[in-house]
């Protein structure tokens, strides 16, 4: 069944690939460890099950063996941690230059997106706001200033591997770059009240060439 | 059964008896409690310095400094009480316990007065009602129009920290009354002074915490 797959659904952001690769590395390592340890456990249970006349060996431990598995485990997990820092900092800190900026303001139970308007600058008169609809061009970094008006929400773009809590009283920078035009879901991943389950928006990624047309249409709609 | 078990000393060489050990362990927990409070205060103050005022602007530092002195004196009288019971001096024990109770009660009383004055000046823990204007402006002309000093976090953290400490002193006074009552009935002697000793441990701890809180809340 597709539902029971351990493969991740396809990702549509630039760093989605990096995250997915890390996931598969961990899946392989843990998968091998899982099979080996559980297999060993079952084998021991069968091999050393109680039989009349069997007497257990009197063993208190094995210093070398214990040192080996401690060291190997330590090297693997710390190696994983070190190997992940690059992706982590890329995702959470390195906002690329020339990003398109929007403000996403969460409130019970909707996502309000403020666009910079034709001048491309936030905080000017031509800004306009749309409810539950985030429209961006593809192949261009988007910088979201994530805010909340009431409680904590979590801005979740599953197909783009983005998740970030929105904190009231703070503005948090989240960025992503979509790799394919299409429509994607915006979900809320942090319990935010009784309407949490229906706090849903839509991310539309336009082909870069079409984006200015969309902007004009949206602006006209907002002016009415 | 219970007292027999509590006083048992099965491990040869164990010098600390259970009651005292238990009190030390309990005080470790108290340390963590105040660590959480003080840590929260530090985080809030660093994140929102505009909510806090310079020392002495809102709070009456000289009054509390005097109160701190009173509490330190009560630690001295507690030490005297323990010294008395070690000597088997029953009268001295009762006298010094009574002195400690009096000083502790006085401390809590001064704190109560401080609270009522501060809250009448608009320095309250409730965020929406906070309107402290500072000691200089309260009695001056046009106090109503004076600018608000600090912000709601100042009031909330002040009352939380001093209030939890005050509750500890109050509980300490109640326990002291119990110890005093037992002392009156002659329950303590040079050979049986565990109750007085652990009372002293608690009292000194509460004293120590206050010196820390006074420094952090009033002086910095």
């Amino acid at each position: 069944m597709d539902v029971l797959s351990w493969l991740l659904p396809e990702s549509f952001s630039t760093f989605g690939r990096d995250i997915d690769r890390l996931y598969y590395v961990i899946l392989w390592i843990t998968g091998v460890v899982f099979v080996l340890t559980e297999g060993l456990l079952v084998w021991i249970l069968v091999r050393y099950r109680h039989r009349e006349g069997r007497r257990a060996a009197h063993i208190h431990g094995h210093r070398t063996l214990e040192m080996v598995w401690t060291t190997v485990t330590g090297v693997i997990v710390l190696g994983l941690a070190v190997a992940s820092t690059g992706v982590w900092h890329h995702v959470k800190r390195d906002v690329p230059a020339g990003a398109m900026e929007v403000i996403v303001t969460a409130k019970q139970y909707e996502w309000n997106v403020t666009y910079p308007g034709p001048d491309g600058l936030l905080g000017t008169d031509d800004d306009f706001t749309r409810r539950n609809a985030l429209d961006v061009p593809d192949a261009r970094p988007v910088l979201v200033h994530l805010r909340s008006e009431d409680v904590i929400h979590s801005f979740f773009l599953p197909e783009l591997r983005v998740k970030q809590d929105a904190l009231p009283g703070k503005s948090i920078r989240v960025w992503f770059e979509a790799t394919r035009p299409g429509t994607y879901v915006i979900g809320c991943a942090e319990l935010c009240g009784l309407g949490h389950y229906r706090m849903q928006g839509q991310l539309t990624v336009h082909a870069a060439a079409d984006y200015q047309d969309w902007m004009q249409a949206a602006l006209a709609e907002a002016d009415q | 059964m219970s007292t027999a078990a509590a006083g048992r000393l099965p491990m040869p060489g164990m010098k600390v008896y259970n009651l005292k050990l238990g009190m030390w362990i309990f005080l470790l927990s108290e340390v963590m409690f105040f660590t959480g409070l003080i840590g929260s205060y530090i985080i809030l103050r660093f994140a929102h310095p505009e909510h806090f005022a310079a020392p002495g602007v809102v709070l009456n530092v000289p009054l509390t400094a005097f109160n701190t002195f009173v509490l330190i004196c009560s630690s001295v009288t507690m030490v005297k009480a323990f010294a008395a019971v070690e000597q088997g001096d029953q009268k001295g024990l009762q006298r010094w316990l009574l002195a400690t109770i009096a000083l502790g009660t006085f401390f809590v009383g001064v704190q109560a007065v401080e609270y009522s004055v501060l809250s009448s000046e608009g320095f309250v823990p409730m965020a929406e009602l906070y309107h402290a204007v500072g000691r200089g402006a309260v009695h001056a002309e046009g106090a109503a129009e004076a600018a608000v000093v600090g912000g709601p976090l100042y009031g909330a953290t002040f009352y939380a920290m001093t209030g939890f400490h005050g509750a500890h002193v109050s509980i300490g006074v109640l326990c002291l009354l119990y110890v005093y009552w037992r002392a009156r009935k002659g329950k303590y002697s040079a050979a049986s002074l565990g109750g007085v000793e652990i009372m002293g441990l608690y009292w000194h701890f509460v004293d120590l915490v206050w010196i820390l809180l006074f420094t952090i809340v009033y002086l910095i």
Partner: protein
Amino acid sequence: MSTSEAAVQAHLHEHGGHDHEEPFLRKYIFCTDHKMIARQFLFMSLFFLLVGGLLAAMMRWQLGFPSQPMPGAGGFPDTMAPGGIVLPEFYNSLVTMHGTIMIFFAIMPLLVGLFGNLLIPLQIGAPDMAFPRLNMASFWIAVPAGLLMLSSFFVEGGAAGAGWTSYAPLSASGEWTGVYLGQQLWLVSLIVLGFSSLAGAVNYITTIISMRAPGMTWFRLPLSTWALFITAILVLLAIPILTGALIMLLFDQTIGTGFFRPEVGGEPILWQHLFWFFGHPEVYILILPAMGITSDVLANRARKPIFGYHAMVLAIIAIAFLGWIVWGHHMFQSGMNPLLGTSFMISTMAIAVPSAIKTFNWLGTLWHGDIHLDVPMLHALSFVSMFIIGGLSGIFMANTPVDMYIHDTYFIVAHIHYVLFGGSLFAIFAGITFWFPKMFGRMMHEGVGKVHFVLTFILYNIVFFPMHNLGLRGMMRRLYDPTQYEYLQPLQPMNEFISIAAFGLVTVQFLFAGNFVWSLFRGRTAGPNPWKSNTLEWSVPSPPPHGNFDGMPVVYRGPYEYSHPDAAEDYWPQNQPPPPEVGPGPEVALSPAPEGVGP
């Protein structure tokens, strides 16, 4: 064996009549005997385990069959489930209360309240706890806390609905959830419960430090006592942090302070730091005793010494120490500084090392053993195998970039249940079935026990394993109705399937309850040492009399001297005197020196 058995008989005679003198109230209700308090915690926690299970079943109904009426639930109040259809606000209460009750009123009192009370004095050779009356208070403070928690379902606005983590500001003001009194009762209940835990912790630590029998050195302590000792230290230091935070949140809720309310300058993230600074040690409070119990049961049923005893002790200590510096891994996506996230990722990965040491040592313990697959052993083995899964799935979330995708999805739901159900609860079953004879003097029914184990093990995995996959499809946790999201609709058959298995899982627990009650009255009489164990609790009658030991036991060796070449039997009790060094003397006839073992 013969001397201790004789002592046991003498003890029985001495105490037999004595017990009857205790009036009912002193013996069963306000009792200071640690064994009775242990049993009181057992009954209380099993009740809450049942409540928590039923709450979970209602959640699963809503998830499997969204907004359809629960069968036979037409009588629910309109504020919860009108006509049996769960309301979103009631669902949030279910989420919150299931987590809170299971963690604070079922697993924690079972592991710490039950096993701490039962095992510590018996395993160290003490007549009771250091402070028996404080011990009694610990239980009787927990009861009103539980009642307060339950009562919150029936107040206006319903029970707390901000999750068991109660993130502020959702939890800081009723205006966001519509829950006022319920949230306050939740806070007060946990504050009260904190005093119960604190009383227990002070008692356990004092008792273990100062009341060990002669010869019971630190490195002769059974691992369950070691684990309970370290757990008690964690409780002692973590609970006050939670209590302080709960009181601040209560002030925000009631008198309107602004600690966690951003609209007046407060810091919501401060709540998360305080909560998880308590919360991660809490995770180890919930797993360390389970590891101790598992170690004892594995060594006994494999008739083999614990592999790497010292490493096991050091691993417990290392986990407890590292547990204080990993709390931030719950908050990777909370908006904290990414550099801080990196350091928390490294400390979190580091804590995998002692966990791995323990797992490998358990395998080493079984290796070359004489493995008896009876009910306690089956549960202990499933602890090991499920803990492996829970531990490995933790690595995914410890990895900050991967966590960005699976954080707050069903992957974490799967992970926590592999640790807390697959881990802690299976160890609890192992512990209850293993020490049942010591508590009640009778054995539990082996056949029913095995059926219960097999069904629980299978259904448990059917329920929780696919949740990993649901998380990987992006299904968020705490979602009242997943079908609201189009991309989650294909998962609905799986949700339905999981729900049906979950109902089965809850149902088969009645097998355990039935076995438990039946065995109380009809179980086979156990005798003092049915498992042929080495530790001191098995050297006294089952159940042990008031005061436990007839005189002071003397300890000669470590707790895991199974299958020792110098002993004829495959066990060698800790308090059995060693055979005399020189030639046959007059004592030889009296001493239990095994056949074939001579000077």
